[in-house]
């Protein structure tokens, strides 16, 4: 009907084209969201974009550097003093740690436990964090060429920050702890209670779900990775409990946590080259249970 009008008046909107592109868009969204079948398109696009992205991240970096450069003398002096005292403390701690480590390895041998593999890490730099309303992600400058694999944990010096969710050749995307539906198995440091920590969304507190209402938890408890799923190495700090709501009408307590690593504060972070472990330990019956079963059978 729109084609029949004379060209002079035919400034009409292209309805057919709109419908075509909308359908195409819906198909692509479906292919990406449900089937994850668009990695090739992304890889090609990333080839085009990566050089520009790295180039543009430079000015921001230099701005940061220059602000560091113009620090005052007194603040630097103060920092030096602080650091030297810190080094003394650390030296002391290192000595203790050495002793503890040797003791620990000895005890482990005694218990015939699996030796905890030390985790290698790869330092990486944040290129940018994309502007999206629905997710909390980062793009870092390490990719498949550097040995980054899907699912590797990302951490700062203080704690876990997130996980690699998509890998390109020279860069990769990282989902932060706060990202929706992010989950990480944790252990309460104080008493060893196991639970799973979930991300809720942008700048919302993390949530400890499926925990009994009467569980032994307190505000200020530190949560560390348990290493049970084989994705995260055990014993790395994750979050602190900030609020507990044990309302009676809920099945479980509502527990809010704060990530230990400041998610929006760093430029550098490290990729933990911890191989996502496919050979998860198969549950086996403990000796006690076996003995009981034997007794019952006999």
């Amino acid at each position, binding site marked *: 009907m729109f084609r029949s009008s004379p060209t002079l008046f035919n*400034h009409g909107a292209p309805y057919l084209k*709109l419908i075509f*592109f909308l359908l195409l868009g819906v198909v692509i969204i479906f292919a*990406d969201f449900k089937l994850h079948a668009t990695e090739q398109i992304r890889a090609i696009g990333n080839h085009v974009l990566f050089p520009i992205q790295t180039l*543009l991240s430079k000015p921001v970096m230099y701005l940061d550097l220059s602000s560091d450069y113009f620090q005052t003398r007194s603040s630097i002096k103060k920092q030096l003093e602080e650091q030297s005292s810190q080094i003394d403390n650390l030296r002391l701690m290192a000595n203790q740690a050495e002793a503890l480590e040797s003791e620990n390895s000895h005890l482990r041998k005694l218990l015939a436990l699996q030796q905890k593999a030390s985790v290698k890490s790869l330092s990486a730099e944040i290129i940018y964090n994309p*502007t999206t309303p629905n*997710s909390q992600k980062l793009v870092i400058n390490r990719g498949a060429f550097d040995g980054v694999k899907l699912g590797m944990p990302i951490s700062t010096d203080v704690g876990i920050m997130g996980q690699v969710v998509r890998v390109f050749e020279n860069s990769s995307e990282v989902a932060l702890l706060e990202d929706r539906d992010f989950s990480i198995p944790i252990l309460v440091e104080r008493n060893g209670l196991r639970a799973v920590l979930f991300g809720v969304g942008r700048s919302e507190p993390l949530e400890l779900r499926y925990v009994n209402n009467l569980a032994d938890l307190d505000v200020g408890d530190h949560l560390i990775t348990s290493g049970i799923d084989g994705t995260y190495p055990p014993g790395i700090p994750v979050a602190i409990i900030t609020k507990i709501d044990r309302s009676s009408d809920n099945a479980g307590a509502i527990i809010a946590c704060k990530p230990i690593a400041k998610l929006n504060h760093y430029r550098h972070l490290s990729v933990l080259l911890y191989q996502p472990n496919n050979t998860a330990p198969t549950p086996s019956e403990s000796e006690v249970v076996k003995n009981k079963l034997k007794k019952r059978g006999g």
Partner: protein
Amino acid sequence: MQFSSSKFNSLSGPFFTLLAGFILNIFPWGNSPWVPDFLLVVLAFWVLQAPEKINLLTAFILGLLMDIQTTQILGVHAIVYVCTCFMILYAQRRLSNTTLLGQTFIMLQVFLLANLIQLFILWIIGQGKEISLAYLFLPSLIEAFLWPFLKRLLSARFTFLNNQN
């Protein structure tokens, strides 16, 4: 609405300005509702100015690139850009018959709808529950605010009348 061809090849004007918009978008601003979509504003200008050169296909491809850039689900920006271009073509007559202020108000509506469409798509997919409404209003307002400046700037450079002297 003739396009100048003396200094620029007929497609290089849109190409370079869209590239500039894209670079502004790529710039690491951080994840905040205060960051407008510069590319969308430039694209809107060109769809209004030269609809025979910059059309829905251009919008779609640029949208896909923006999706890759922002690690968004592929196709979200593409649909938003296509819809925006369609709305501008739909209101083309009205847009070219009003003053700059009137245009800005129409563009505010267009940008509001564009951002609404984005949130709507995310909501349908199931990722829009915790998005604050700042992501709807702030970018739209800033984009509409940018419109008159960009329109002045680019029209002065790329219209036929200005090329006479």
